[in-house]
């Protein structure tokens, strides 16, 4: 099993969700997060005071899936979230040792 963490632009969430659903992926966790990479923040001006806002709002999607789905899922996320402009985000993949469905006690890939 693998976990995909994708940081994307907030307005791309619907497209990414639909692309993953098309692959048969049945669940995901979504959070509103803030951060910056190369895009950096923006400047806000209130009369004479200028403030640099470093952290920009992003969406983090977490999906845990079987190894067989990994390649198509990451490709679908990258394709759906891409605008070609700076700030499109990143996708991280990491191994997952175990998963348990609480309701049924199922474990492993059956549980995701």
């Amino acid at each position, binding site marked *: 099993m693998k976990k995909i963490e994708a940081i994307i632009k907030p307005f791309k969430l619907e497209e990414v969700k639909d692309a993953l659903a098309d692959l048969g992926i049945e669940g995901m966790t979504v959070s509103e997060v803030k951060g910056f990479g190369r895009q950096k923040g923006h400047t*806000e*001006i*209130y*009369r*004479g*005071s200028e*403030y*640099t*806002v470093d952290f920009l709002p992003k969406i983090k999607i977490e999906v845990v899936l079987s190894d067989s789905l990994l390649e198509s899922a990451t490709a679908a996320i990258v394709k759906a979230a891409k605008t070609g402009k700076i700030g499109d985000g990143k996708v991280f993949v990491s191994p997952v040792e175990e998963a348990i469905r609480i309701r049924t006690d199922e474990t492993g890939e059956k549980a995701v």
Partner: protein
Amino acid sequence: MFKISRKWTSILAAAVVGGSMFVGSSWAQDAAAPAAAATPTPTPTIETRVADLEAYVTNSSPNTTQIGPLGATSGPGHNAWMMVSAAFVLMMTLPGLALFYGGLVRAKNVLSIVAMCFGITGLVSILWWAVGYSLVFGTSFGNPFLGGSEFFFFKGVTSAPNTSYAYWVSQNVFAIFQLTFAIITPALIFGATAERIKFSAVMLFTFLWMFVVYFPLAHMVWGGTGLMNGVWNASAKIPAIDFAGGTVVHMSSGWTALILCLILGKRLGYGKEPMPPHSMVACFIGTALLWVGWYGFNAGSAVAADGVAANAFLTTTLATAVASFVWPMVEWLFKGKPSILGFCSGAVAGLVVITPACGFVNSTGAVIIGVAAGIVPFIAVTYLKALIGYDDALDTFGVHAIGGTMGALLTGVLVAPEVNANLSAPGVAGANGLLAAITSHTLVIAQLKAVGITIALAVVGTAVIGLLVKFTIGLRPTPENESQGLDITDHGEEGYILN
């Protein structure tokens, strides 16, 4: 809690009594309240009664030798407008200013702004009833600097007009209308000191400031025997004009704000950590309420529903609309974007600058004032503040002091005698030199003197009171409390609980 409230009650009571005794003992010998000549007269003729009706419509004096049914009564139209105006000006403070200032502070201090606006409303109302109205609009002292004692505790302030100020407006309505000005003026000050002054210090400072700065200044400018009341006092030494309070309200609060924020020092973390407004939406709503309420402030200052009020209604709209447009356009040009705070600041600046002029200038003058109001205060808050480096948190000095001072001077330059008959009334303006100053285009000299006196009184008065409060109960919260936010530390509440 009980101990604090008892302490406050006794401070208040002692000061009210002490204040009235001080004035009573030192001025009583001069007090000779002019009693209304109520000699019995024959039944008024039909001519007198018609003439009184005409006087009501034209806002002039009813017949005083032959008192008819309208002789000592208010006129419903004028009274109605003044009651609406008084309510409008109260709306400028509650909730207008509270939202305008409250939106501009950080979320942890929004209630401290509401509390100070509300606290000042109650405190100043008590002072106004007890002595304030009389010290400003009384005349029994026969003094150019302070009014009189005849209206202490609203004695004789009834529904009958006080014809020294308005022929057709009930004196109780007039007194409450003027109260709302006395409320908003100190409330304006504490924009400069926002986020770092204790509520107790706000209350004590306001209490003292009303006696030292506001009551004398308002009498000098608007009182029947006032030093610089060019329109109403035939023996005014300085024939200056201030229609709705450029000196009394905006300059006094603005210059006070500068001195007080210098005494207070900068907010913790000022210049190091960001302190952006927590709600530009609240700020916008507050600004819009200020603008609407300001019609009561400016057009209401005619103290009648007459042609002068109508002119003030027009000039207020033009100057404000122009300034609210010019400020964000200048900002767009020099800062890259037209901001909502730019629109709001421009509107308030336009309102401030037109205030002393609104009943004395025509539409052309109003547009010129609007342009100036969109540019000069913008420079003050954007560049001057950064250059000098004081922490005027919400730009009370930049908008109200700079704008108010500019408005007082521009009034002297742009005055248009045709819009207001009082500017050429032979009995008053002709006697004290106002008319001569206008015809020789030297009114700006009288305005400069009024500006100088206002700044001197506000600066010196504030320096003394500010230091007094600082070294008695203290001005600032502890650093821990300031970091936590005054809403919790001073009021035990939060403005927003979102979960």
